[in-house]
């Protein structure tokens, strides 16, 4: 009985550790075919333009897709946008990987006829991207992937032109308040001078 309990406990521990340490990217098979509408080098505008992504199971792949339950399609940073930016680093452990930070869509898995049109959100940063999709199995851990670019992430990349976040009203407010501060400083000096003159005359 004790041995049985021990086995259950160690099995649970293994599962726990497994999900803690996470799946590694290098262990995944590239079994999905993913395409995205932007052409290589195209610049798309955040908040305005749309991209259409399609994904399907690669039928020439020797394995099966019976384990796949859900699909997530992500917008991922290309290496050039990761340089000198530790918060976008690519790490093999998918639990710690920061390559793909924006989700385009999440759907139940089906092997073909999948497509989604996405309006690029307003707060997507200015950077160069590609699209990747992950297939998840029933424990919600990654089972396979597919991406629009090659293994070195150098081909078929596109750029998102971000919004600045600035508005004319903000610009005007900043300038006005700044000018007012400096102006009030001069007023203070004048007031001070006058006060001193008055106290001298008394």
């Amino acid at each position, binding site marked *: 009985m004790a041995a049985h309990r021990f086995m259950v406990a160690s099995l649970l521990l293994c599962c726990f550790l497994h999900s803690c340490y996470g799946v590694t990217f290098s262990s995944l098979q590239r079994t999905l075919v993913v395409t995205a509408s932007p052409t290589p080098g195209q610049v798309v505008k955040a908040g305005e333009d749309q991209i259409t992504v399609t994904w399907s199971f690669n039928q020439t792949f020797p394995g099966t897709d019976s384990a796949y339950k859900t699909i997530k399609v992500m917008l991922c940073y290309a290496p050039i946008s990761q*340089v*000198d*930016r*530790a*918060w976008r680093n690519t790490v093999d452990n998918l639990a710690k990987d920061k390559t793909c930070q924006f989700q385009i869509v999440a759907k139940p898995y089906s092997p073909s006829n999948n497509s989604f049109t996405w309006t690029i959100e*307003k*707060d997507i*940063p*200015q*950077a160069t991207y590609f699209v990747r999709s992950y297939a998840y199995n029933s424990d919600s851990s990654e089972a396979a992937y597919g991406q629009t670019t090659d293994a070195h992430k150098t081909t078929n990349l596109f750029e998102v032109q*971000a*919004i*600045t*976040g*600035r*508005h004319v009203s*903000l*610009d005007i*407010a*900043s*300038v006005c*308040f*700044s*000018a007012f*501060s*400096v102006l*009030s*400083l001069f007023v*203070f000096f004048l007031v*001070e001078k006058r*006060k*001193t003159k008055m*106290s*001298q005359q008394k």
Partner: protein
Amino acid sequence: MEEPHTANNSDHPKFALPVDSEHKATEFRVYSVAAPHMRAFHLSWISFFSCFVSTFAAPPLLPIIRDNLNLTSTDIGNAGIAAVSGAVFARIAMGTACDLFGPRLASASLILITTPAVYCSAIANSSISFLLVRFFTGFSLATFVSTQFWMSSMFSAKVVGTANGVAGGWGNLGGGATQLIMPLVFSLIRDIGAVRFTAWRIAFFIPALFQTLSAYAVFFLGQDMPDGNFSQLQKSGDKHKDKFTQAGIIAASFGLANIFSRPGGGIISDIVAKRFGMRGRIWTLWTVQTLGGVFCILLGRVGSLSVSIVVLLVFSLFVQAACGLTFGIVPFVSQRSLGIISGMTGGGGNVGAVLTQVIFFRGSRYSTETGITLMGIMIICCTLPMLLIYFPQWGGMFCGPSSKGTTEEDYYMSEWNSTEKEKGFHQSSLKFSDNSKSERGRRVDSAPTPSNGTPLSHA
């Protein structure tokens, strides 16, 4: 020992607090807002706090700013260094400005001059503009100098350590408070409906407005000295204009522990001085700062997160207390050049901050842990010169007062030449000399008589 000679009416009817012959308060009552002493205290720490909030408003919002402005780690690092290095020059100028114009005008002016940089943070659109706004906003950290100068002008020797420590500590608190305030303000604005990349820009108006208002408060409600403002006192002959061209002060530590630890350092300085005088102040400072260095070395060596946090807290407590203790000593170094000395001491601290970052924490030469350990060693080595501090009238760590019988009056009078003395420029230093006799501690031997027998005159 005999008590320093206080004014005949030590509870001067004009003042809410008991004062000495220079009308500096001899008590520090933190709950009071009575003019001029405690009001000056609250104005100075609040305005200094607002400058810290503004200077360190960017870091908590960096995850959004770095995406909006497309910053790299290098850009962020450079902007961080720029934020504190601007203050090196500004503090040098501030010490002189305080000597010339008084802390009220000097600090109100500086705070108002730097608010445009905070307002313009909202319209930054590149890594260069980001660096520039952080650089110019950082100039406002020079209000540290005016804070310490103002407290040294308002509070007597007995409580100057406490006043300096509390004002400095609670001001530094702004750096910690901003880490909580800015994300809160940002979320509020974003939830109202602004896009992230606009919300952070609007959020910067909050510290900017706070800074503007505190500058107005300082100007309208503040007063340079217990008896009035510099300009009035200069014209009526009580205060003499001095011509100087240097000064610098620095100090930029952060952390919420500042609410207790830095004031604690100042309070301990005053407590120790009651019994052991200036020598006690110096010994305590050396001990506390060296221990800070020891904990810093330890911090670089510990392995687990929870132990690191504990060590970090202890380290920051000692380091911040050392800051409070330092400014328990600075007011006594010079009376004539209080501004410059305060400026250089504070400035020296910031130079240390810049140097440490450049040597140990830039690039990948040293791992962060090694850098921290080496910084601890640097702290201990830089604390050693304290062994050489020597006040002829009080002594140093290893020596007693000069056997020639130098008195406080001899020391402070030596800053003025005979022409200046004829014109009466030395009067306030004379009063200070008398009031600073408390720095002898409790000694059995009687106080030596002044070497030239000048009787103390009362204005």
